[in-house]
């Protein structure tokens, strides 16, 4: 078969959703607002750096810190946007009354869910990519490696995919968009904040029992922690600097394990969401007389 772009099968839902989103004024204004916020943060940060440094060389060196600053703000904003994007993905199809038609087609529920998650993820990547010019300052002037940028893009992609999968699951758990958005934020709170709880409990009650590090295992599911690790590694921080050297000895291993778990969990969420939207799941022919019902 001749290999060409036309032969690549793109999930129809992803294609349709990206097309619709890219045409809406909401997207254009959203992108504008996103860039504006990042721009303000950029100028504010650069102003602070100029005040604290003596001479241009020092200021240029400090520009490397724009990378985690802009990156963290971006991810903070995206953490707020992605649940809105994905948590309403299925409910809005239901509200528009297009969902039933989708289910009568040959698309499997899993394909529908994947299409929704992928479109939200790629949509978020547009925001990330749009912010690269601002970040580029840290690379061109601050002297960071371009591999760090690639790492940031990959990490952002996994982050968006993970949070998007949480959102899509929530979208199948409630009937109304607003309910699923709220539920999605609750889930995010559990993963971002709640994952610290085991560690906090262990630190409070079993400080010297040598099991402190076990409490950190739940943080593997916390994308924010892995992000901090990524930024610190990219910036050249020593292992002992990362969470006081307590969490892990090798940040790279931590990130690989954490991202693998997050992808695995994302697929699990998607599978569960697909079972939630499949109206005839497990349907096998049964006769009334066999079942003893008249």
């Amino acid at each position, binding site marked *: 078969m001749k290999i060409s772009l036309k032969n690549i099968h793109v999930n129809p839902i992803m*294609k349709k959703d990206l097309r*619709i989103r890219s045409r809406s004024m909401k997207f254009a204004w959203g992108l504008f607002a996103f860039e504006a916020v990042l721009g303000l943060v950029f100028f504010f940060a650069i102003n602070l750096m100029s005040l604290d440094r003596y001479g241009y060389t020092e200021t240029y060196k400090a520009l490397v810190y724009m990378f985690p600053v802009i990156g963290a703000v971006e991810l903070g904003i995206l953490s707020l946007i992605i649940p809105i994007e994905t948590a309403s993905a299925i409910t809005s199809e239901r509200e528009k009354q297009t969902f039933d*038609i989708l*289910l*009568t087609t*040959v698309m499997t529920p899993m394909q529908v869910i994947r299409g929704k998650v992928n479109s939200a993820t790629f949509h978020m990547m547009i925001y990330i990519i749009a912010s690269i010019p601002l970040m580029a300052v840290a690379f061109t002037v601050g002297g960071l490696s371009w591999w760090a940028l690639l790492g940031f893009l990959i990490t952002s992609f996994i982050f968006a995919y993970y949070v998007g999968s949480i959102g899509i699951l929530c979208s199948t758990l409630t009937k109304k968009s607003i309910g699923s958005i709220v539920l999605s934020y609750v889930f995010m709170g559990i993963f971002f904040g709640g994952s610290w709880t085991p560690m906090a409990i262990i630190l409070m009650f079993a400080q010297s029992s040598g099991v402190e590090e076990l409490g950190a295992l739940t943080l593997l599911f916390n994308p924010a922690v892995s992000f901090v690790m990524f930024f610190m590694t990219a910036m050249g921080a020593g292992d002992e600097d990362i969470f006081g050297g307590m969490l892990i000895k090798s940040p790279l291993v931590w990130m690989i394990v954490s991202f693998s778990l997050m992808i695995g969990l994302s697929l699990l969420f998607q599978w569960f969401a697909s079972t939630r939207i499949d*109206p005839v799941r497990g*349907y096998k*022919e049964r006769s009334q007389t066999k079942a003893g019902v008249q």
Partner: protein
Amino acid sequence: MLYLNNLAKRYGKFYAVNGLSLHVPKGDLFGFVGPNGAGKTTTIRMMCGLLKPDFGDIIVGGNRYSTDKNAVKRCMGYVPDFFGVYDNLKVYEYMEFYGSIYGIDDASVKRMTSDLLELVNLSNLEEQYVDTLSRGMKQRLCVARALLHNPELLVMDEPSSGLDPRARVEMKQVLLNLNSMGKTIVISSHILSDIAEMCTSVGIMNRGKLVTAGRMEDILSLGINNHHLIIDIKSDMETAIQKVREIPDIGIDSVMEGQIVIACSGEDEQINRIMIELMTGGVLVGGFRKEEQNLETLFMKLTGDDINVNQGMPMGPVKGGMNR
């Protein structure tokens, strides 16, 4: 084409559909009628895979839903009673989206879209945004969308609901055209006159059960002995009622102001006899008219509260009469 085999759906102890068996032959335009809550939409949703049956099976084009969902979905197109559309999507893109779901390449979708839009009287609207179309146009676009993968069976749930009279007539014409092209169509509707005009066969549901089903002419002939004779009385009503009661084999259905409605077979000899009896009995008759049995009167009769659905009516699965 379509077999429903002992289909049942219950919610708690309530059976929305109970032991429904039906056969719709290839090429039929089958009308599903019944009062609200009869189980029509539940049946249609089970047919289309939107609701899991508790019992029974659905066979479309020889494929069982319980064993090969995808094969069933491939030979079925579904048009719901609403027309959900996506904002910011053009007519062509709307069709392209559904085409890509069925793995149809863009060039074929383009060609088919043009043909299908012509079929549903929406020619040259490919570049129009879907949300700018009128309600009737959207519903016809929905029909075109359902036909994109060339299904053998088209299932439509109240496709004319909320349409204005012109849009209804246009929709009816589209369905007749499709049927003449050999498509099997199952349509549920409350508009009995449309069903009676269009459909080649009909099924009447009530309280989750199929009361009767068969070819339209056979169904209408079920009530052939239950015509109504409406007589305008210009003299004393009491005398007229008394005289009618004396005539054997007929009964008074109702009495209105200046009118007596008589249930009779509707045969000319019987009508003549009634008129002669009344006139010779001194009753002054201002006129009379025969109200023939139609789908509406039959529907009212069959879905009335006191009806015993098993009495004298053929139950599904429909045999003989519906087969061509």
